[in-house]
C-alpha cells in the first residue's frame, strides 16, 4: 500500500453488517435509513435491535431525503487531516421528515452562513469528496406545502 505525502488520508467510513445497506444506498445516490419491520419506527444510527419494540426484524428503506435544519456549527478547526484545507464548513444536525426526532448529522452545502436558520427545509445531495468517498450532505430546498 502506497501513500503520497501530498494527499491526506481519506476519512473512509468502515461499514459493518448492520450499516452496509446505508453505504450501498449512498453509492446509488439514495438515502437509506434503518426501519423496524415490526413496528415501523426508523432507527439511526443503525442497530441490531429495535429500541421501540425490541424486534430484531430490521431493514434499510429508502427515505425521501427531505429534512429540516435542527442546528449547525461552523467548523473552523479541523480534527482530521483530510479536512485541514476544507475549513470552514457547516456541520449540521437535521431532522428527517419521515419521523419526529429522527436526526441525521451531516454537512450543509450551497448555503451562506447568514442564510442558515433552524427549521429551514433541506434536501439530500450526494457530494463526491474523492473518487472513493461520496457522502450525503444537505442543501436548501424549496418549502414543501
Amino acid at each position, binding site marked *: 500500500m502506497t501513500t503520497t505525502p501530498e494527499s491526506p488520508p481519506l476519512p473512509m467510513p468502515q461499514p459493518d453488517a448492520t450499516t452496509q445497506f446505508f453505504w450501498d444506498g449512498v453509492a446509488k445516490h439514495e438515502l437509506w435509513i434503518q426501519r423496524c419491520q415490526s413496528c415501523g419506527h426508523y432507527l439511526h444510527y443503525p442497530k441490531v435491535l429495535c429500541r421501540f419494540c425490541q424486534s430484531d426484524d430490521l431493514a434499510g428503506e429508502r427515505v425521501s431525503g427531505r429534512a429540516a435544519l*435542527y442546528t449547525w*456549527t461552523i*467548523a473552523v*478547526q479541523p*480534527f*482530521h487531516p483530510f*479536512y485541514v484545507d476544507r475549513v470552514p464548513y457547516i*456541520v449540521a*444536525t437535521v431532522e428527517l421528515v419521515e419521523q419526529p426526532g429522527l436526526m441525521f*448529522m451531516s454537512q450543509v452545502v450551497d448555503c451562506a452562513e447568514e442564510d442558515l436558520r433552524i427549521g429551514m427545509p433541506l434536501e439530500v445531495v450526494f457530494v463526491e469528496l474523492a473518487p472513493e468517498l461520496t457522502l450525503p450532505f444537505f442543501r436548501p430546498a424549496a418549502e414543501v406545502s
Partner: protein
Amino acid sequence: MATGQRVAIVGLGYSHVARNSGLTVNDHVIQATKAALADSGLTMHDIDGVTSVGTEPLNDAWLLGIEPVNWWASGMMAPAFSYSAVQAIAAIASGFCHTALALRVIQQQPSSSALVKGAGANHPMTSMLHAAAGDRQFLTPFGAGSPVQWAGMFTQRYMSQFGATEEDFGRHVVTQRYHASMNDEAIFRDPITLDDYLAARYVSKPLRILDCDYPVDSGSAVIFTTEERARDLDQPVVLVDSYALTAVRDLNFEIMSDMVHTAPVATAKSLWERTDLTPGDVDTAQLYDGFSIIVFQWLEALGFCGEGEAGAFVAEGNTRLGGSLPVNTDGGACNVGRRHGANFCIEATRQLRGQCGERQVDSAEVAVFTNAVGPFAAGAILTRG
C-alpha cells in the same frame, strides 16, 4: 432527603496541576490523595472504598496501601468526577463501605493541531477522532466528532431558539474570570472584558476558545465518609443532602433530538425530588463548564432562572460574587484547568466550610455541584452540617 446513612465530605485534595506537569498518572493519584487525607485528618488506613474516573481503582488502592477494599467502582464515559462522587455517596449511604476515596485523574491531551498533523498518532484521542467504525462512521467522514462540534451545535440551537447572543456567553466567561482572579490555584487569573471575549478565536462557531475548559494534567481527590465519623474530625462538617445520576440516551451527542433540554433536566428533577430544599435556598452553584452552554443548561434545569433566561440572569449580575447566586466561584474549569468536575465538588465544599477567603460567599449554607450535559449528567446538593 436522601435515604440511608447521611454522608459527609471530609477531605479535598489536588495534585500539582499544570498544562505539562511532568508528572505520571500515579504521581497525580498519590499527590491528590495525600492532600485530601491531610485536609481531612484521616489516614490511608481509614479508607475502605475507592472509585475513579480515569484510573483503575483497584490499582490505585494497592498502590496507596488501602486494604481491605470493601467497595470500588470505575467509569470512563461517565459524568466525569460527579460520577465518582455519587457512586461514593451511594456506597456509604448503603453501608457498602464507610469511607471512600473518589478520584479523577487526567493526562493532558495533545493539542488539536498536533492531532491533525499526526504528532499524537498513538494517543487515544487521536484514534477516537480518526476512527470511522461503529457509530463513528456517521461522524468522522463528515468532518465531525470532536466535542467542540456538538458543543457548537448545542450553543447555536440555544441561540436560535431563544434569541440568545454571543454576548450572553461572554458575560458569563468574564464573570468566571473575575472569580478566578481571587483564586491562587487558578491558571488564568487576569481579568478580561467582554471585548476580549469577542476577540477570542472561534473553535466551532459560535463556540469560542474561551468557552472551552483548559486542558491540563490534573489529579483530584475527595474523601467521603459517614456523618458520624465526620463529626469526630476537625473540619467543618459538610453533608450531602441529595444526589442524582441520570442518562437519557446512549453516548451520541450529535444526534440528540433535543439539544436544549438534555440530561441536566432529568438530574435536576431528581435532585429536587430528593430534598426539602428549593432553588431559592441555594447560596452558591458550582456548575460544570466544559463549555459555556453547559452552565446555561444547568442554570435553567435547576430552576435558578426560566427557560432561555440564563443570559439575562448572568447579565443582571446574579452569578457574580455578591449576586443572588454566585456561580463557579473558583473560576470554573475554563480557568482552574480541566479537573473534569472535581473542582466543583471541592469548591462547593470549601464554600460551605467558609474557607474561600476573598471569594467566600457570605454565610453559605447550601451549595450544588454538577457535571456533564447531553446524554448523561450527575450532581449533588450539599449543606453545612
